[in-house]
């Protein structure tokens, strides 16, 4: 079973040289730390920046330079700034190669729910609906089951949707799965020490297991 760092490390292997990548808050943010050397990516922050660098050293924080999580960040050589309309314009136009975000639920059709829980204070969807509607390649980073022990990979989402038929890949503490509408969750890799049976037990939606499922290789 993987911890959060493990999930981030596994997703980092999906990032290819030259990609423009948008990282959501939480586990997705960690992915930036594990991108292999030699793979050059440009991080897009939807509040209006391409070329997001690491957090600043203490004393070098600039209140005019934040990321979409409102954290202070830095520039890298080649950074550019733009306004929010252009930022989502490039997302809509399919210029961003990969979006990595968290989810509360994903359905076997690739629907995602990650912004609202009925009965709880609704904080808003931020840029999540725009990102899932537009990105050509979306990976969800999440726990396989929720705190109550219920599967988050479902036949149909029970929570209000963020987007429909948009999720292509999921990486959890147990497995790597592809999502193919009309088929279901296709099991690609097992986390170290996790059996197919355990993954099956934790997956409420239709799980497709074909042949031997390899164990993930994580450095």
């Amino acid at each position: 079973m993987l911890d959060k760092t493990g999930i981030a490390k596994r997703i980092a292997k999906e990032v290819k040289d030259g990609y423009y990548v948008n990282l959501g808050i939480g586990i997705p943010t960690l992915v930036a730390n594990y991108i292999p050397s030699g793979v050059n990516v440009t991080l897009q922050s939807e509040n209006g920046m391409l070329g997001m660098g690491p957090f600043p050293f203490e004393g070098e924080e600039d209140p005019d330079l934040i990321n979409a999580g409102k954290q202070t960040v830095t520039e890298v050589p080649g950074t550019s700034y733009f306004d929010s309309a252009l930022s989502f314009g490039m997302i809509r136009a399919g210029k961003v190669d990969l979006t990595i975000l968290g989810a509360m639920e994903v359905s076997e059709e690739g629907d995602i729910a990650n912004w609202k829980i009925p009965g709880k204070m609704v904080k808003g969807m931020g840029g999540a609906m725009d990102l899932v509607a537009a990105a050509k390649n979306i990976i969800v980073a999440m726990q396989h089951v929720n705190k109550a022990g219920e599967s988050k990979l479902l036949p149909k989402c029970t929570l209000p949707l963020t987007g429909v038929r948009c999720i292509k890949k999921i990486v959890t503490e147990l497995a790597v799965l592809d999502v193919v509408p009309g088929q279901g969750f296709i099991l690609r890799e097992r986390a170290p020490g996790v059996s197919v049976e355990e993954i099956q037990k934790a997956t409420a939606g239709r799980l497709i297991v074909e042949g031997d499922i390899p164990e993930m290789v994580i450095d």
Partner: protein
Amino acid sequence: MNKVVSGPDEAIRDIADDSVLMLGGFGLCGIPENSIAALIRKGVKGLTCISNNAGVDDFGIGLMLKTRQVKKMISSYVGENAEFERQLLSGELEVDLVPQGTLATRCMAAAYGMPAVWVRAGVGTEIAEGKEVRNFNGIDYLLEYAFDADFSIVKAWKGDTHGNLIFRKTTRNFNMQMAMAGRITIAEVEELVPAGELDPDQIHVPGIYVHRIFQGSTYEKRIEQRTVRKAI
């Protein structure tokens, strides 16, 4: 042409109760601090605020929530404000949640003189309820209308007496499109210079969109999430 006003109180002098305002910024980054303070001094009520966020309890639009001046927020994310939550749950405050890109694009549509735009964000979700859907090349889109705000209030880095504006780093955010989208645009800047001093090639918002401009007296520029890395 005289766009320069003495300060925020003169700039917002004719904002009346029940006005619709656009307020620039993302989180607390690039917010029109001086104008918000003036709106609180003026005490206008019943405001509808189009703004990506609602500030925090003691800064930004949060200050106007405390004084009960806001009737409705049109935002994409409002999660950092306990007073907001209290007013929302008690029914004192209305909120219209709009996907962030759609919010920005509805400002852009107003800036570009377009009545509406087709967007994919929210298709198949509760956001789509009651909205016109049209299929282009096999993909469904929602019709989203341009905002119509009485006033836009933005913060830029530098401006000149003709109203030309330049922003710094990620403060462009919603400020840039909002500056171009309001019926009357008020811009506060850190540095106001005579026309001719800014490089025309570096202007982000041309002055035609800006009606009133002033140099803010002080900027706190509060940081919402101060994150640092350890020195090596």
